[in-house]
């Protein structure tokens, strides 16, 4: 035992020595650090792509960490990245509420913080680029209304399926949707969670269909679930456009394909890649110390338009 503790000590001292050696080496090129929500999702893969390309185009070094949908990983990994010395931090937080320690750490090192989507968690970030989730929901509601109006079977029943309960900000999509659709005189017969998963979206939709065979449209908090839902509708011998109008969120590739294949109605497009690019530009400005143009100054937000994607837009998008 004493021998081990001795080795332990000597080991630590040795590592410390190496530490000094490393610290002496300073880096010249500016480095942009991006901390991404979870690379398991197509949406964030797109966002990461946009960010990376923009950063490299602007001639920055670029480092990435994946929060793997865990808040403690988000904080620790991002802080590690800050410790490694970056000139600007771009982050799409898994839990905006947990941004506090990260922003503090960044401020300590005078590093500008650009938040990419999801939410700012009321922290002292420099700017947040956010696609208006609630607006997206409203968009979906109005689109559904217009579609259903044009139809004979005027069932006023719609359903709304949320992402996992802990994804507070994604929930706003459904909030916006439900508020608007009610105003338009529809009945929301079911608000359930599909845990952001394809298979769950499928299962829940099936349940909804057997509870309310006459449901006219379903809005889902993200595209994987929407795709699942579309398949569920198909499996119960109906169609995701003509019979039960399925609307998703994100405009992921799978969704666009599904729309193209006539299996689901529409999706709300966010533009992750553009957002990535924007964040890099903003970071550049901040590093230069320029003023920014906010959409809403009080909480330093810059809105990214969300727009509706139906069959023809889907085609054009896929072409690109």
């Amino acid at each position, binding site marked *: 035992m004493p021998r081990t503790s001795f080795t332990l000590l000597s080991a630590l001292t040795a590592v410390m020595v190496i*530490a000094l050696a490393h610290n002496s080496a300073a880096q010249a090129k500016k480095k942009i650090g991006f901390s991404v929500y979870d690379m398991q999702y197509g949406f964030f893969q797109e966002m990461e792509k946009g960010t990376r390309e923009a950063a490299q185009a602007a001639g920055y070094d670029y480092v990435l960490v994946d929060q793997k949908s865990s808040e403690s990983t988000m904080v*620790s990994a991002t802080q590690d990245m800050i410790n490694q010395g970056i000139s600007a931090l771009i982050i799409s937080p898994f839990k905006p509420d947990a941004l506090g320690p990260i922003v503090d750490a960044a401020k300590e090192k005078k590093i500008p913080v650009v938040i990419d989507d999801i939410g700012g968690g009321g922290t002292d970030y420099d700017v947040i680029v956010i696609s208006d989730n609630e607006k997206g929901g409203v968009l979906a509601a109005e689109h559904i209304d217009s579609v259903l109006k044009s139809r004979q079977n005027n069932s006023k029943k719609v359903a709304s399926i949320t992402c996992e309960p802990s994804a507070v900000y994604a929930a706003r999509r459904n909030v916006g949707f439900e508020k608007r659709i009610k105003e338009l005189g529809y009945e929301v017969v079911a608000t359930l969670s599909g845990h952001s998963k394809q298979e769950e979206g499928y299962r829940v939709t099936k349940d909804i269909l057997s509870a309310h065979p006459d449901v006219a449209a379903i809005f889902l908090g993200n595209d994987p679930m929407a795709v699942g839902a579309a398949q569920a509708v198909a499996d119960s011998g109906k169609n995701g456009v003509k019979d039960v109008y399925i609307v998703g969120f994100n405009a992921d590739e799978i969704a666009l394909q599904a729309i193209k294949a006539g299996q689901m109605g529409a999706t709300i497009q966010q533009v992750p890649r553009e957002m990535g690019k924007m964040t890099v530009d903003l970071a550049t400005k901040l590093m230069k110390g320029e003023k920014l143009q906010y959409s809403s100054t009080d909480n330093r937000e810059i809105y990214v338009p969300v727009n509706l994607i139906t069959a023809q837009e889907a085609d054009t998008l896929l072409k690109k």
Partner: protein
Amino acid sequence: MSRRKPRLTTPKTQPKAQKPLSTLQTEKSEIPELSVTARIVNQLDWDLLWERFGIAVVTIVVWFIAGLATPGFANVGNFVSVLRQSAFVGVSAVGMTIAIIAGTFDLSVGATQALCAWVAVSVAKMAGVFPAFLAAVAVGGVVGLCNGSLVALVRIPAFIATLGTMFLVNGLTYIITNGQTARFSGKSFVWWGNAQIMSVPIPFIVFLSCALLGAAMLHRTEFGRFVYAIGSNREAANIAGVPVAKVAIFVFVVVGLFTGLGAMLLGARLYSAGPGLEPGFELNVIATVVLGGTRLAGGRGSMLGTVAAAILFATLANVLNLNHVDAFVQRVVVGLVLLLALSVEGVRQRLAEYWSRRTVSTRHPLGGRRSAVAAIDEFTD
């Protein structure tokens, strides 16, 4: 589960915990015809050594390699971060170590942590740090008490009982919080998760003190004795006068308390907490404990191992990130490390058997007799 592996005909080498060196020498003088490797494999109690110090050594080695190979690993700021990160799993792993040594198990720590963290943050917001601490620990304790009673009194197998409470607490947390995350960034509260004293992070200090406390409980108190006894042979423990039920309940309470404390630290660390905090936390904790050399079947294990394992996992995550290893690959690496570390003992046994078939002495090792008895006693049981 581990009890049921078909390995019972494996002879164990003889414990020479207290003075392996001297015994090694005496044996050497008696069995000269053994090859060096064979002798070492035969004479040292490898599983004991490995169990005690294996992971500690591995961790140190990893630190060395990382320090040399990874730019940016070896700097104070990074060490601080690694150590801090090790604490959040670590604190509740301290409790889990005790539970697993006692031959039980708690799958509900993840859910409990989420609930406690939320409680801690909300109470801190309303009433301040100390009440928050009390509240979090209390809630943890209560959940532990439920687990304990289910296992010891209702006599539901720990695995299922805690699986049940896991689902239960999870749902309750969502219902209580209505899915909302609580947030509080009061300096005095946040300090507990993020500050450091002389570049030693507070959470790590707490973690170490918990580990010391746990070790003290295990080795210096009657309770600790009972824990080992129950883990080693529950029926015998009962006959020997160990209050098995009471101890079992208390074990789960302890797990709950430590989890509550860890949860508060995490809440402070994140300035916030809510439902769905840290998915898969329970499995990380268990993996940490077992990686630390604690035997899943109970009866054996040490705190040192748990501490080392916690640091090792944190280091691993850190190093992988520093080297910009793809997140998907990271999953694979972590899993592999776990498997490698845990197959060491099995492989060692294999080797020992292999050598024992090859090497044989024509002369009888006088000193070897008692151990002959031992070996035979062990596997004829």
